[in-house]
């Protein structure tokens, strides 16, 4: 092994890996590049790789729509729904993992299957419900909807995570005189931090990117960044660069956030798939 690690196979592997990565990343990179072009540069043929970057598009976007408002809404709704979701999902996952009953598996599967109905189908009922309860165009309404639509995945992730914790540790704490609360506070919670973190991260990403409900249930006040995009794909006039800029601003925070948290995310994303 020590002799020479730079074997042809190794070099080839590195090369191919980088090639594949660049190809797969290219569209996203291109989006970022386009965001710094003028509209004419954006559609120039052949495509420009070298150009003088401009911030004009970002200015236009900011001028036209209050980016900070949308960003704030995105942040608040996704963080709130993540928190709320974890609060609901954790006890359920705990109960399922440690007090396995006859129907535990079925309940889990049922929860997952609720996610399979196309959202469009439920639009009218949900819209009517939101309207009668005065939750249209409120962050509260969005938080509730996000939470509920992510809940099944959260329960499942946490369940797979909790299942890996040996029951004996909890028993030990009971023998040590722990009540349900102290068992949760001192043993369960610290042990599941990793699972909670990665579940939270995934939910955060999903909520941030949720477009259907945020578009349909919000107007001027509660719109999230996903709805911002909907105003930049105009059928009149050139818009690629502006669209790119708006997209860049909308996905930027979550992508960067994703980069930083990817290690953490991966750990829990395995749904107990890896022993």
């Amino acid at each position, binding site marked *: 092994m020590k002799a020479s690690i730079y074997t042809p196979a190794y070099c080839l592997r590195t090369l191919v890996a980088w090639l594949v990565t660049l190809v797969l990343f290219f569209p996203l990179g291109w989006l970022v590049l386009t965001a710094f072009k003028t509209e004419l540069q954006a559609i120039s043929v052949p495509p420009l790789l070298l150009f003088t970057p401009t911030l004009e598009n970002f200015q236009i976007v900011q001028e036209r729509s209050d980016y900070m408002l949308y960003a704030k809404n995105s942040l608040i709704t996704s963080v709130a729904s993540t928190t709320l979701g974890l609060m609901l999902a954790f006890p359920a996952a705990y109960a399922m993992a440690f007090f396995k009953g006859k129907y535990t598996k079925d309940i889990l599967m049922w929860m997952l299957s609720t996610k399979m109905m196309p959202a469009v189908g439920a639009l009218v009922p949900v819209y009517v419900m939101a309207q009668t309860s005065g939750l249209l165009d409120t962050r509260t309404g969005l938080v509730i909807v996000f939470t509920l639509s992510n809940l099944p995945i959260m329960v499942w992730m946490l369940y797979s995570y909790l299942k890996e914790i*040996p029951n*004996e*540790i909890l*028993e*030990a*704490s*009971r*023998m*040590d*005189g*722990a*009540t349900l609360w*102290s068992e949760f506070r*001192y*043993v369960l919670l*610290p*042990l599941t931090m990793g699972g909670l973190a990665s579940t939270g991260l995934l939910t955060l990403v999903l909520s941030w990117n949720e477009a259907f409900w945020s578009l349909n249930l919000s107007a001027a006040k509660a719109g999230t960044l996903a709805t911002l995009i909907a105003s930049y794909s105009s059928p009149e006039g050139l818009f690629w660069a502006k669209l790119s800029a708006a997209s860049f601003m909308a996905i930027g925070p979550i992508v960067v956030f994703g980069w930083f948290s990817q290690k953490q995310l991966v750990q829990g994303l395995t749904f107990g798939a890896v022993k």
Partner: protein
Amino acid sequence: MSYLQLSGVEKLFGEHRVIKGIDLAIQQGEFVVFVGPSGCGKSTLLRLIAGLETIDGGSLQLDGRDITHQPSSKRDLAMVFQSYALYPHMSVFENMSFALKLAHVDPAIIKDKVDRAANILNLTNYLQRTPKELSGGQRQRVAIGRAIVRAPKVFLFDEPLSNLDAALRGQTRIEIAKLHRDLGATTIYVTHDQVEAMTLADRVVVLRDGSIEQVGTPLELYDRPANQFVAQFIGTPQMNVVEAAKLPSVTTVAGVQVPALGSIGLRPESITLVQAGQGAVQAKVELIEALGAETLIYVTTQNGAQLVARLNTRTELHVGADVGVHIDADAAHLFDANGRVVAAGAR
């Protein structure tokens, strides 16, 4: 009255009756070991005492108080789990002090108690480490430490050594014995390793299939097993048990006639190999295990009976050699067709 009293304790898992009415009285300070083959209900019985499983029948009394239906956190028992069940996110100190912290004991006292326990267990230098930074043996000691610190009424151990390697196991066994002698705590210890049972126990409880087969001191069980099961379970290598028909030379043991369908039990040390032609039976050497201080010789008799003999000396024999087998019939045990002891040689 006894300190811990089990009366007709039963446990059902679904339809399956796992613990079948156990009566047992344990005295204060006693070291009781549960042994038995895998699946016989040792762990379950221990967990019933611990309150980790609900008792389905009978009652449990500790120090004169009925604790049959108390939650485990109220029973004042401490348990050492097979997997140690240390809290992986806490330091050794926190692990050991957790119970006291929950009981709102004064921090200064906690520190004092933990330090004392750590000292006894040679853990003083590791108090700030987390469990995964410790070796198997050290983890084991932390688990014990966690129990000691609480000074509980009864210590429960569920196969605490089975995750250790042979050398460490021997060593830790001795430590546990010393600890018990020093603390004098009432202890219930589950194992399926009969060497542990022999060396640690004041009394051994042999379980089989959810019922008690025999209770007694280790040497009582060794010398006067109540039945073939206990006889073969205790002692290593196992007692040789041979159908009576295959050992026609043995006719009476301690004045009792050998029953026709019964069998004869012989400890390896009551078999002596002599020159071929001599002795009660003729046999061939199958395998020799020379362990230095002792030698085990596996032979097959002409009748097809397989016997192990234990020698405290070296042997000149080699595999395939013909030997005579001398049997110390005075030390033999006689079992009837159902495996019950009918007679036992005086020892």
